[in-house]
């Protein structure tokens, strides 16, 4: 690829600083919990780089010995923030690290035990918009509990536009899973039987168990139909007890 043909102008070859590393990221906020899940495949073009990469990080205040003893399977407190990125993995890793750094300085400077979801979301916006003209090529979703203890999810576009939502899918499988979630979580296009499309099915919080089932079915389905999704599924769950992580195998073809 070249621009400029004449002798006086140097020929410029282009370096592309981005790549698409595939994968899918999914979050659902429940009444008193939130979950953030992603597949563990990292790919480029038609090759699989690794079958076990981690696109989500639980950013948590340090765990006390007492907490660890009481909750041996918990990897974070209820004040944690689940931070997930999907897209160009190098930018995803860099963004995660930047945010973690900000989080640490924030709790240190403000003498707080944690950062609220609202503040975290605004900080992520600044990080993303700060590179408006050389963007982090990632779709970001963060999950946690809000100040009332309700499940909370914020999703971001690559340059920092964000919104609090009930559920969101990012990455390769977004267009495949999002309509499914619209229908199954927010009951879109569902009417109460017998009312002839006059009364919509009322939106109600789903139980954690129900959400986990939807997440697993969403990922096994998108693994069937999208080539960059597969290998493994990591589900992070945050509720009043803390953060835990589940792993399930996905198909490896």
């Amino acid at each position, binding site marked *: 690829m070249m621009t400029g043909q004449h002798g006086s102008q*140097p020929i*410029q070859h282009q370096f592309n*600083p981005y790549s698409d590393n595939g994968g899918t990221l999914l979050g659902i906020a429940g009444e008193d919990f939130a979950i953030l899940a992603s597949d563990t495949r990292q790919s*480029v073009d038609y090759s699989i780089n690794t079958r076990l990469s981690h696109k989500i990080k639980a950013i948590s205040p340090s765990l006390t010995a007492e907490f660890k003893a009481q909750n041996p399977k918990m990897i974070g407190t209820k004040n944690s923030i689940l931070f997930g990125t999907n897209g160009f*993995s*190098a930018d995803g890793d*860099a963004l995660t690290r930047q945010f973690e750094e900000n989080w640490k300085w924030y709790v240190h400077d403000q003498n707080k035990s944690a950062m609220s979801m609202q503040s975290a979301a605004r900080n992520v916006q600044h990080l993303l918009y700060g590179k408006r003209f050389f963007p982090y090529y990632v779709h970001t979703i963060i999950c946690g509990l809000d100040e009332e203890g309700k499940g909370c999810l914020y999703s971001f576009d690559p340059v920092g536009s964000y919104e609090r939502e009930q559920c969101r899918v990012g990455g390769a499988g977004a267009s495949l899973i999002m309509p499914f979630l619209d229908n199954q979580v927010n009951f879109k296009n569902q009417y109460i039987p017998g009312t002839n499309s006059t009364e919509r099915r009322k939106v109600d919080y789903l139980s954690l168990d129900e959400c986990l089932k939807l997440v697993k079915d969403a990922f096994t389905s998108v693994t069937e139909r999208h080539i960059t999704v597969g290998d493994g599924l990591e589900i992070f769950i945050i509720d009043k007890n803390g953060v835990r992580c589940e792993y399930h195998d996905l198909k490896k073809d």
Partner: protein
Amino acid sequence: MNHDPYSWGRPSDSMYGEYNREIANAPTSMEQHTSSSNFNEHTTRPIVTGTSVVAIKYKTGVVIAADNLASYGSLLRFQGVERLHKVGKTTVVGISGDISDMQYLVKVLDQLSMDNNYDNDEYSDNVDELQPSYIFEYLSNLMYHRRSKMNPLWNALVVSGVDSKTGEPFLQYVNLLGVKYASPSIATGFGAHLAVPLLRRLADSEEQAAELTLEEAKKGIRDSMRVLFYRDTRSSKNYSLAIIDKDAGITYDNNVDVEDMSWKFAKDIKGYGTQKV
């Protein structure tokens, strides 16, 4: 990643459409001060290149190999260029891609281990040896930093070793874009297409790698290097092989040859279709 270093870091038009170069051409704040020209004189393609690096973890360490050839385009230009580099006591870094950028990286790594030695000699109170994870952290930050300045080091690196405190095998990859990952088996360039399928048959998960013996791992690497010599036109028969073991330390051989090749049946193949003689 595409096996051809010349296409590394270039957009695949078929999938994304043509890349918008306006974004990339915008000068960074630093360059606005230092450079009067509109064009940046950065590495935009590799010149002398090294091909695949292949590596696999086993029970108590890692086996890594890379051939000793530096190519100038399709010319097999320099034989005897070692692309496996010892850093500290328990790390070997394998480098593919541009050779001049590799030599710069080696200089950086030498300085790194020298600095570390000054701070951690026998008179120090707390000796903190260079661990593979430290070196990887340094290199991955360097690679991402350089790509973010639009001035990449045109390489794909494999950092292998064992943690000298825990004895845990270490194997991770980073390339010119700063994309990094860990896996039980890793290969760069052509090796990602030809060697990885073979190595994943030996160990597709960390659990399987933890059961693999040194002999099995070595055989996997030898088989991979043979297949690469058969099929990668920029490869050579002569290669270097390093074993980093938690007990035996680093065993390094810079003069291994591909063995057990079979070209016999070639004589029976006539022409490209219907020819009989």
